[in-house]
């Protein structure tokens, strides 16, 4: 190996794990009884405790699935990082930015599954405690998007700076990433209100945010697949 070329062997194997884990994510999403429709933040402690008592198994199995497979996004993000090597950048610093948030993004979600699973572990616990675990889970899940927002912005900047005749990703992908970043922002304010579109079960904080994440994964997978078919580029000295 001449050192300036990075092997791409096995990248397709990683890429095709995405449809498989996506099936698991979708299944877990619908298995969790608190997502369709999303649980209300206005529910009393007694109602929250009753929810966990009534849907114990579905809460547990769906969250165990998420707990296992949410980090399966990381290898996909690493494929993205590898494509960034081909960008017309002088330094690897934007790749480091993406790596810097690629781990934390799914692990923030992993943390929320831990709180959900703790809430479900002892349904006989005092309702106030169960409600607190439920709040911690929902706030971590809904507001825990800073790494995804930063990821979108970093990808957008990286594409904008990819000045070459045939950029790695098309230009519109940069704008698309900014739109997704903006779509995620309102969810961060879910703590401010317990009802309306901005509450954690509201249209903006729940549906807009989660659909945006799903669309991002799908669109990025498509452009990633196209970029993967192209010839590898000889990387620069500092890359």
């Amino acid at each position, binding site marked *: 190996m001449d050192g300036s070329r990075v092997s791409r062997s096995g990248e397709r194997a990683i890429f095709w794990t995405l449809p498989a884990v996506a099936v698991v994510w979708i299944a877990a999403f619908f298995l969790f009884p608190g997502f369709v429709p999303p649980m209300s933040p206005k529910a009393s402690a007694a109602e929250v405790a009753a929810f966990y008592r009534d849907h114990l198994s579905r809460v547990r199995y769906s969250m165990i699935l998420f707990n296992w497979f949410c980090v399966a996004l990381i290898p996909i993000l690493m494929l993205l990082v590898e494509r960034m090597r081909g960008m017309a950048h002088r*330094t690897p*610093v934007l790749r480091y930015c993406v*790596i810097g948030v690629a781990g934390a993004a799914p692990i923030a979600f992993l943390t929320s599954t831990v709180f959900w699973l703790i809430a479900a572990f002892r349904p006989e616990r005092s309702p106030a405690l169960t409600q*607190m675990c439920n709040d911690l889970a929902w706030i971590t899940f809904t507001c825990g998007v*800073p*790494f*995804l927002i930063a990821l979108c912005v970093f990808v957008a900047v990286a594409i904008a700076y990819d000045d070459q005749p045939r950029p790695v990703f098309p230009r519109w992908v940069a704008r698309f990433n900014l739109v997704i970043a903006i779509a995620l922002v309102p969810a961060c304010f879910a703590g401010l209100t317990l009802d309306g579109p901005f509450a954690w079960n509201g249209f903006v904080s729940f549906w807009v945010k989660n659909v945006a994440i799903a669309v991002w994964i799908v669109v990025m997978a498509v452009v990633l697949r196209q970029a993967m078919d192209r010839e590898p580029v000889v990387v620069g000295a*500092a890359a």
Partner: protein
Amino acid sequence: MSIGASLRTDPKRELWFVWYSTVAFYSLYSVVFFVLTRTQPPGRPWLTPEQTVGWFADRHWGLLVGFALIFVLGGFSATSIALITYSIRRMSVSRAYAYSYLILYAIAAIPGFLFICVAMTVGAMRPERDPTLMHWLYDFGFLSFSGTMGVFLVGSLIWMAAILLDKNGVFPRWFGYLNLCNALTEVVIAPSWIFQRGVLAWNGVIAWWIDVAVFGMYTVVFIYLLRSLIQRDDLGTGPVPALPPGAAPRAHPLAKVLAG
């Protein structure tokens, strides 16, 4: 050069983007913690459960809005990590140093600042919650925030070792030693897991005030030095050249005096 021009046309524009984001992030961070949420200086660890309810009530909107801003922009903490990783990568040492630094800080963001944001938001969103649970959220927030300094300890030591071994002159060597000083003050925060009052508690004179003073100096210094690295960088792999005369960054006064 203006910010706009350096972000559009400069060949080092991605470095400048990351550097300006770092400055913006640290400024936002300071405003949120010191002004909006008033969670720095930290609350008193000896509050009773009922007093913590009052503490949350006092800064209700500040906590919710302030930490919402961190939820939006917290991910930009990765910019300083990436830039420091790049600085280590620019040195004549193994990439293992750079990658260790990157991974260490990237994952530490979750306990390091996401937990306090979540705990304080959950505390503020239901003022009627049982006071003992409010007390727990209060402790969870402050202890997770202050008590995860092992990252800074090991991280500073990695950066220090890289700087002292480096032959490319990426940073002045005194900054390597400043990393050691910073690492040693991070040790001092560990007793905040043990003491509920006194100088070593999480708001204590030693564990908070002295540490924040050192950490503040360290942060200002490294942001300044990263800027001067970007200015000097030739984007190669060899020694980082000095700035052309006229634009020379000031050497550390102490180093200059001692050299003369």
